[in-house]
């Protein structure tokens, strides 16, 4: 059975490879790996910045997303309305629009000149709205009886969230959260529009100076995969570890 799966996979790869080769052949593509190798430092620096921005925004997204999720579940109507409205506003507009407005209007108004920090904040503001919805779904899936038990034992609201609701909710939404983290890494490529020298932007720079697009964009795809695949691997590991609960 295993051998069959392996052979089938090999066959699929072969067919796909042939198809790609056919496409490239019809383009009469002239490979120029030497040119892009010259530009490797530019691309690597961009990749490093993408990692930095992603890590910063990831941390911000987890914190801000959690605040938005809990904010939507509070009994206090004003807080609830603000959090709800924020999530709807962000999810209803394109990231591109938010980045342009956020950078050229809001960040400018606050005299925030550091592009990297502005980029991290803008990305956080966007991703947190989605993260909040994922977390809220997890919280909503916790049975009423769990709240009841916590109340009966005399836990206060903060203790109930911390010891009873969140640990269970997080376990349930972990795959969704990991997916959102991978999205965050990929979404960071849009920060090129406000002139941040992240991976996608730097790849563009390298490609245009060597006019060898495939030699640039293929490593770019691999560079993003190298960041997103470990995230889904980690999520799967954690999921297995917490399966019983």
């Amino acid at each position, binding site marked *: 059975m295993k051998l069959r799966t392996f052979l089938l996979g090999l066959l699929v790869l072969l067919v796909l490879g042939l198809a790609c080769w056919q496409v490239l052949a019809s383009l009469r593509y002239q490979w120029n790996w030497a040119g892009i190798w010259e530009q490797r430092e530019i691309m690597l620096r961009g990749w490093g910045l993408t990692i930095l921005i992603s890590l910063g925004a990831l941390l911000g997204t987890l914190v801000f997303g959690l605040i938005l999720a809990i904010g939507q579940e509070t009994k206090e109507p004003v807080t609830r309305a603000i959090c709800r409205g924020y999530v709807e506003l962000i999810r209803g507009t394109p990231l591109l629009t938010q980045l342009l407005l956020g950078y050229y209007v809001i960040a400018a108004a606050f005299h925030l000149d550091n592009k990297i920090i502005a980029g991290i904040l803008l990305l956080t503001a966007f991703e947190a709205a989605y993260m909040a919805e994922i977390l809220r779904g997890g919280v909503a899936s916790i049975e009423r*009886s*769990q709240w*009841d*038990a916590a*109340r*009966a*034992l*005399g*836990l*206060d609201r903060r*203790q109930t969230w911390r*010891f*009873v609701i969140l*640990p*269970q909710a997080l*376990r349930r939404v972990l795959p969704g959260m990991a997916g959102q983290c991978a999205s965050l890494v990929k979404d960071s490529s849009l920060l090129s529009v406000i002139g941040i020298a992240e991976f996608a932007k730097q790849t563009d720079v390298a490609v245009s100076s060597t006019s060898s697009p495939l030699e640039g964009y293929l490593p770019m795809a691999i560079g993003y995969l190298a960041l997103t695949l470990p995230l889904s691997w980690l999520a799967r590991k954690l999921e297995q570890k*917490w399966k*019983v*609960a």
Partner: protein
Amino acid sequence: MESGMKIEVQSLVKTYASQRALDGLSLSLPPGTRCLALIGPSGGGKSTLLRHLGGLELPDSGSIEVNGNPLSTNEIELRSYRRKNGFLFQGYNLFPHLTARQNIILPLVQVHGKSMVEAEDLAATKLARFGLAGHAEKLPVQLSGGQQQRVALIRALVSSPELLFLDEPTAALDPEMTVEVLELVRELILGGQDVILCTHEMGFARAVADVIAFVAAGKISESAPPEALFNSPRNPDVARFLSRVLEFR
């Protein structure tokens, strides 16, 4: 201190959506009552009454007085009332992400201010006494229903509650496990624990309760000591109910 509990319920009303769960219910217990059993048809309001007595629900109107203190409507005061008491649910309601031991320790440390060492000690003692010593590190899903309910019972008991509320504690258990849990509850009552329970186990209610209150349509139809209620019910609805549920006994 005078033995037994004092409960005074005055014209309690509670409406959910359009359903009137409690319809001006009043109840007063004779002095010296140690165990009150609420019986009656499903949907009659006995669980709702128990949740009100346990401070888990607020009535639309009416009042409850427990041991001389009126129950507050303020969440913080109500919380300290709940902290003094224990509540056991029909579906156990253990925290599924915590082991049996952790389920017991959590309220001891977080609510009752015990040190980790004290809490571990207490949990280990109770687990051993309830025949669960080998199951301390298991998650609820790894335990049988009866074992889960016993863990939940320890969790409710371990802080020495003034009152112990049991909401149909055996309704989700098979007959063998039912006996296993009921025996523990009877032991507790004999040991001096004040208990209010609602149950479908007529034999058990009769054996352990000092007062049985029949709850139907959001009111108390009749409340009396078990012998009087079972042998010569005054209310015709109670008589009809008892003759039907006891038909196959």
